[in-house]
């Protein structure tokens, strides 16, 4: 902090020395940036889901395949993905309490869960029962899966980088804000899966 100013009229000045140098939640610009990304990606997902139903409305038969996607791996992965919200929640809480040890622990658990759901995601792709180039139904299903999987991969990578940083440093207060915001984005990737799961796995069954 700089030397106090020697000004004649101190009532002309609004001093901000006392303010914190980082903050959590919607106080933080990082929150707004993350929310902007959430808005964009939600729109992409919503438009993809709308395209799925648009194509369906023009189709005589749906799915345009012998079988809709097998339920087993998708439903299992939905459980794994939803469960990953637990370590995510604890990581976020730990970050907002500036508890480095807890942050490290829970972020490692998050990383392990991301390995699990990425692995099951591979199995999901094999159980879709349609190829992306067979017909528009296949294309729509693969697009939805592809978009969400891209988010899983990039979110997993983000989280990995952050986890490593939490161990190696250099650390400062706003890194805890990054952990909190990363957790917030993780919530989005998890929750956005629910409608997408419903569309891919049940959209051709009802």
């Amino acid at each position, binding site marked *: 902090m700089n030397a106090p100013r020697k000004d004649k*009229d101190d009532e002309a*000045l609004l001093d*901000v020395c006392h*303010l*914190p140098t980082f903050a959590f939640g919607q*106080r933080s610009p990082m929150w707004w940036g993350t929310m902007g990304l959430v808005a964009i990606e939600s*729109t992409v997902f919503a438009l993809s889901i709308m395209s799925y139903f648009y194509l369906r409305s023009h189709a005589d038969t749906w799915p345009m395949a012998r079988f809709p996607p097998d339920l087993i791996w998708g439903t299992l992965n939905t459980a794994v993905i939803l469960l990953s919200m637990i370590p995510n929640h604890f990581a976020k809480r730990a970050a907002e309490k*500036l508890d480095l040890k807890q942050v490290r622990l829970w972020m490692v658990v998050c990383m392990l869960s991301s390995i699990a759901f990425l692995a099951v995601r591979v199995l999901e792709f094999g159980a879709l029962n349609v190829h992306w180039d067979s017909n528009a139904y296949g294309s*729509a299903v693969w697009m939805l899966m592809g978009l969400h999987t891209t988010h899983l991969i990039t979110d997993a990578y983000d989280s990995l980088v952050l986890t490593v940083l939490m161990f190696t440093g250099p650390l400062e207060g706003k890194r805890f804000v990054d952990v909190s915001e990363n957790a917030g984005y993780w919530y989005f990737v998890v929750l956005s899966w629910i409608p997408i799961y419903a569309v891919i796995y049940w959209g051709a069954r009802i």
Partner: protein
Amino acid sequence: MSMAKSPAPPRLAPQDAAQLHQTWSDPPGLVGWFSAINHKTISMRFMVTTFVFFVMGGLLALAIRTQLAQPDGKTVGPDMYNQLFTMHGSTMMFLFAVPVMQAVATYLVPLMIGARSVAFPRMNAFAYWIFTLGGIMLFIAFLVGSGPDAGWFAYVPLSLLQFSPGKRVDIWAQMITFTEMAGLMEAIVLITTILKMRAPGMTLNRMPLFVWTILATSFMVLFSMPAVMLASTALITDRLVGTQFYNPLKGGDALLWQHLFWFFGHPEVYMIFIPPLGFISTIIATFSRRPVVGYPAMVLAVIATAFLAFGLWVHHMFATNLPELGKTFFTAASLMIAIPTAIQIFCWIATLWTGRLDLRTPLLFVLAFFVILVIGGLTGLMLASVSLDTQLHDSFFVVAHLHYVLMGGAVFPLFGAFYYWFPKFTGRMLGETLGKWNFWLFFIGFNLTFFPMHVLGLQGMPRRVYTYPSEMGWGSLNFLATIGAFMMALSVLLFIVNVVHSRRRGAVAGDDPWGAGTLEWSVASPPPPANFEMVPVVHARDPLWSAQKLPSHVSGLANDYREILVTSVADADLDHRLWLPASSIWPFLTALATTVLFIGSVFTPWAVVWAMVPVAIGATFWFWPKKDIVEQRTGSERSPLEVES
């Protein structure tokens, strides 16, 4: 009421001011040039780059007009012509119209709201690089004979592989990815800056009208650009890996493209139109010497326009076989959106009516809006009717309409904005005499070019035709239009001459040559790297036109790191301080890696996989904090948990 005589503002001690200057400056040298992230530096490059694209788009237009000047034109053949109009539309829409607004905004918004920077300055820089590299890719493709040729709107099935072989359309689709990614990032930057970094006391109610237009536009970007990104991604996958989104033989639908494209495309034109509404408000206020009439109505009108713009897209599809009742809904919406614009026009006329007018070049360009945009808006009402549209759609009538609204609504105010803010950007005034010549040539040339096109459309001339037979009788009006186009070109040349000449030899501007009311005029021209030596405290709209109140400035922000003030969303109450990152080469390098990924994936889908690696590496280094800098600052950290406020 005369301008309040304010006491001399508090200043930093000279050594602190020098340190502040140093902290926020761009690093020197070649590597430094690529590492710069100061928002004004990036914005200047961005403005110049978009202007270069504007000129290139204009040259493409001159080629088009030369070919169409006479029937059975032989200047270019059909293949080159189709590339010309595709490149013209794509350049103007994707590489100029929205990006230039974001570029100007990233310069002015921090200054207008009393901030030292934009939020996320490195992402701001990355967005500029990714935009520029995408534009370069497009023009290189054109220059090597692989320019896209399926129209700026690339309707399927024409743009599918079967009817558009080669890589032309893939390049176009990937250009979309580049530019929309940049646009989306800029939108996030601008929204966060506007909502979280306003100077203390600048409540939303005191925010300049221009800043409101940028806020509204940026939200529109977030919700509209994903549509075209999704559409173009599906187009690339149809072409590259055989998906069937748009193939009716395999369950796809040609209109899926049109819905997705126009869901973006209609808001797009309002994203082009709304920021200039902010230019107009600002310039009319300054050159009428009074605030614009009806501030709340003006703000609500902008917000209403932004919302309504999402409900119009089907009016681009009135000639299709969509149900007639549905189409009529979109007629009603397309008519209704005229209401908020009408409110704004009436408020501006009221402002001019009760002002003291200075009819210099910035105002002249803005005044042209009232003739040209109004005509364009009225022809828009004509096109809004389904029945009328069935005669006018895809004819030269639409070419006339779109240019009247885009140029009247955006380009004229933009030129006004350049004349108005050039002194702030450079410290020099643009020549006024040359400015008037520039204006009148542009105004007359514009009307000469585009007014006849209304008639040509009614006379049956369709769009996107590389030639027409002489017996149709369309030759004279086309010839007139071409003359007008060359007049506009001459006018733009005059503008360039004015800029080049005035950079060195224009009258010195000083801080506030226009006696304006907003905060950017309270700092030097051009502004110092940190914008404000001491962040101001705001007590009214148009702070420079209002009585000085205390406290007037903020103290306690660091001079030796890039420290900014974060305030609350609605009332701009103090919240916390934040350290922004310093200059870095990584946004540029990551943009290069991303470019490799995007261009590679035009040729093989595997590029997505292996090119992700350098992108990830670049992004990681971009993010990774520097040990010495962190250690330097950790001593002065204050946690929000200590401060229970």
